[in-house]
């Protein structure tokens, strides 16, 4: 045990060294708890992903069971891997490294456990509510408002615990890893609250206070920075701690890490609009997103090189050590993904890649490579230390590495091929100027082999995680858990003050202003937003198209079922201004068409065709038969059957509340419309049923499917009613190639 942790300190005149050395204990129990949760949720989340992947080439795999159908299962997968697997993984990494870097225990054990159990209870709540169809539909922010509030509360608990530990640290310098953790805590809170603002309708339903273009912009401002500040910054912090520890050599350049940190966090926050290139979002916002995305290459690659160059002269260790192997692969994958990201954010590239499986390949390079492998490496490094033993089997961990790498390759390479194939086929014209593949199904059939290969890759990767779980379990059994790890250090405060302060109380007082400032900041942000946002947004004067009208009550319920079933996981509602898209789908989408869409439903992936102009394209009976059995109308379709829509009764009890809530967020329903809504609904449902009868379909008017059909038939039809050829209200969009 040495109490001279940093050399310069020895030169300082300290009167009585022995009295300033403090003995304290690191809390390993909380680290172990997060580690166990990481492994369990990793397996759950990846299994959900695999079930999703299988349904894409074998739609019957849901066994006609609505709770595990692709549209509802996809958010289970994404939320589980992002917030449960990576979430618990980052807390594991943070709680271990912050204590050691700051030479202190966390601020409070109570807060630590409140954080752990709160966070995992939220995950359980998500795993129950998402399959039931309680979703906001906003990607990676699907959880409904009661859970959203719980997330905000638990996040504040984490933030206070983290900042409290930093404030009472014994080590004066705040190592770069901690800077990344601070950025994570503060930024996620802001993003989560701003994007999550809803007007509640029932316990499990709320309407986003933003509509259409606004909602899309806020969502992707959030969505992209969820990637930045959940999947990237905490993991970069972990890279800066665990990679040097595992290699037993200092980070290549501490100076570079400083530049990396400040540049990265500053630039990331602006890059969100690159998710909306060529959509109805105004051009200048798209360009802003594109430019900042390209700039992101510099800090990202600075960080990647800093990690890899740390291993200069240690590559022999990489050959032996599975921990370092995983780290090298993770950092390399980070480099690949952060080069590819800016490339995809270039409008020209994006015009091909958007809505295709290329995006899926891109995120899985990041998720399987960067987040997955870094989590594995930290687990392999950490568990033996927590149990004061060696890893049970280095050989098995090496096998895991090669299986994971192979699994990742089998995942991403087929997805790249599929993505580029789709993108090219969608845009291909014949010499005569017609679409080469006018039937969307042709492009789906073409990529089915790649969907199968992807499922094999995912299976391999998941198998590797099981191997790791077994290896870690054997390691834990072989060792002896060290719940409280004793440590000794000299506090920088006692040194600068030249004499020993009697301790905690004084230091606590010293630190209080910063803690107060942080709490005040959070309070101000919450309070300020609640006041300001409704003022700006609800009363806004949005660029309207006069013929665009609010949805009828039946259509509102149909739209909410569309959200419940997760239709937007496969169907976009955003036709980009390309000839290949206007030929296939119809008139391109205008900003003014979405002013009553709370939330927006533009989607981000076309596993099936765009639905923006589906209204009026097919008769009602076609939709009925198609939802009953998609393959009866579209042979070869991979869409699941929606049998429960045919049998389930439409729930109209909350209809008046829904109309009222929509009016509150700015949809101009006339006063008292709540009371007439049910009559209006029954009338429209009767008309749909009567029309279905003409198409040889007998249906009851009080079923879910009637509302869905009414909604689909309304989609994109309003601008066709315009008296003159559509004149764009706000401008800003030009038809492209």
């Amino acid at each position, binding site marked *: *045990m040495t109490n001279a942790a940093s050399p310069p300190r020895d030169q300082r005149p300290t009167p009585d060294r022995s009295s300033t050395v403090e003995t304290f204990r690191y809390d390993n129990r909380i680290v172990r708890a997060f580690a166990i949760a990481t492994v369990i949720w990793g397996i759950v989340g990846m299994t959900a992903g695999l079930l999703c992947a299988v349904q894409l080439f074998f739609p019957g795999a849901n066994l006609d069971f609505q709770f595990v159908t692709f549209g509802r299962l996809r958010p289970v997968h994404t939320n589980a891997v992002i917030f449960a697997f990576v979430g618990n993984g980052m807390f594991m990494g943070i709680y271990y490294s912050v204590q050691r870097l700051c030479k202190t225990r966390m601020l409070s054990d109570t807060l630590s456990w409140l954080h752990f159990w709160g966070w995992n209870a939220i995950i359980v709540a998500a795993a129950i509510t998402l399959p039931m169809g309680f979703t906001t539909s906003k990607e990676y922010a699907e959880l409904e408002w009661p859970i959203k509030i719980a997330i905000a509360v638990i996040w504040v608990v984490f933030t206070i615990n983290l900042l409290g530990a930093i404030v009472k640290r014994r080590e004066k310098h705040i190592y770069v890893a901690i800077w990344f953790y601070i950025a994570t805590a503060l930024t996620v809170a802001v993003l989560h609250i701003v994007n999550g603002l809803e007007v509640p309708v029932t316990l499990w339903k709320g309407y986003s206070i933003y509509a259409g273009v606004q909602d899309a912009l806020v969502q992707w401002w959030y969505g992209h920075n969820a990637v930045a500040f959940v999947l990237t910054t905490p993991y970069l912090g972990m890279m800066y701690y665990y990679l040097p520890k595992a290699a037993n050599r200092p980070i290549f350049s501490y100076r570079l890490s400083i530049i990396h940190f400040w540049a990265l966090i500053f630039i990331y926050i602006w890059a969100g609009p690159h998710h909306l290139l060529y959509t109805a979002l105004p051009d200048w916002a798209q360009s802003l997103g594109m430019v900042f995305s390209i700039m992101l290459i510099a800090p990202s690659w600075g960080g990647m090189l800093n990690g890899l160059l740390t291993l200069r002269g240690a590559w022999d260790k990489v050959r032996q050590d599975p*921990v370092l192997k995983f780290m090298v692969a993770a950092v390399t994958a980070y480099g690949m993904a952060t080069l590819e990201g800016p490339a995809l954010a270039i409008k020209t590239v994006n015009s091909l890649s958007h809505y295709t499986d290329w995006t899926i390949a891109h995120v899985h390079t990041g998720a399987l490579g960067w987040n997955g492998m870094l989590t594995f490496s930290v687990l392999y490094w950490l568990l033996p230390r927590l149990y004061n033993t060696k890893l049970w089997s280095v050989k098995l961990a090496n096998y895991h590495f090669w299986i994971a790498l192979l699994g990742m390759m089998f995942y991403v390479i087929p997805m790249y091929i599929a993505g580029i194939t789709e993108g090219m086929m969608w845009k291909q014209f014949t010499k005569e100027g017609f679409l080469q593949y006018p039937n969307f199904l042709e492009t789906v059939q073409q990529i089915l082999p790649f969907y199968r290969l992807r499922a094999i890759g995912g299976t391999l990767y998941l198998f590797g995680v099981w191997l790791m779980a077994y290896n870690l379990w054997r390691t834990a059994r072989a060792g002896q858990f060290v719940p409280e790890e004793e440590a000794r250090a000299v506090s920088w405060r006692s040194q600068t003050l030249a004499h020993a302060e009697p301790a905690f109380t004084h230091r606590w007082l010293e630190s209080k202003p910063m803690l107060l400032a942080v709490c005040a900041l959070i309070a101000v942000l919450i309070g300020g937003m609640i006041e300001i946002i409704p003022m700006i*947004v609800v009363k806004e004067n949005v660029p309207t198209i006069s013929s665009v009208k609010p949805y009828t009550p039946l259509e509102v319920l149909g739209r909410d079922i569309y959200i419940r079933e997760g239709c937007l996981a496969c169907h976009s509602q955003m036709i980009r201004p390309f000839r290949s898209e206007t030929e296939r789908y119809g008139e391109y989408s205008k900003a003014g068409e979405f002013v009553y869409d709370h939330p927006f439903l533009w989607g981000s992936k076309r596993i099936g065709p765009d639905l923006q102009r589906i209204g009026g394209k097919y008769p009602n009976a076609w939709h009925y038969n198609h939802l009953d059995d998609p393959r009866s109308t579209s042979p070869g379709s991979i869409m699941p059957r929606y049998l429960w829509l045919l049998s389930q009764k439409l729930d109209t009890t909350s209809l008046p509340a829904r109309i009222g809530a929509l009016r509150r967020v700015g949809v101009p329903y006339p006063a008292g419309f709540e009371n007439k809504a049910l009559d209006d609904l029954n009338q429209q449902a009767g008309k749909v049923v009567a029309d279905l009868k003409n198409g040889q379909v007998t249906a009851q008017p009080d079923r879910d499917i009637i509302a869905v059909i009414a909604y689909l038939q309304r989609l994109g039809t309003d601008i066709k009613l315009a008296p003159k050829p559509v004149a764009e209200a706000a401008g800003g969009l030009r038809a492209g190639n």
Partner: protein
Amino acid sequence: MIVIYLLIPLGIVTAAIFLAGFIWAVRSGQYEDTCTPALRPLIEDNPKNHKKANE
């Protein structure tokens, strides 16, 4: 797009917080020494507990 009036100030406020953090970090001497901070995490371990862990 009026929501940009919220997002831009929010972006600026967030960036300003980090700028303030940066200025504070520099002033409080966080970056006076860019050599030993990189070494410090490596030598903190208590040898009693981690004699031969995982090597």
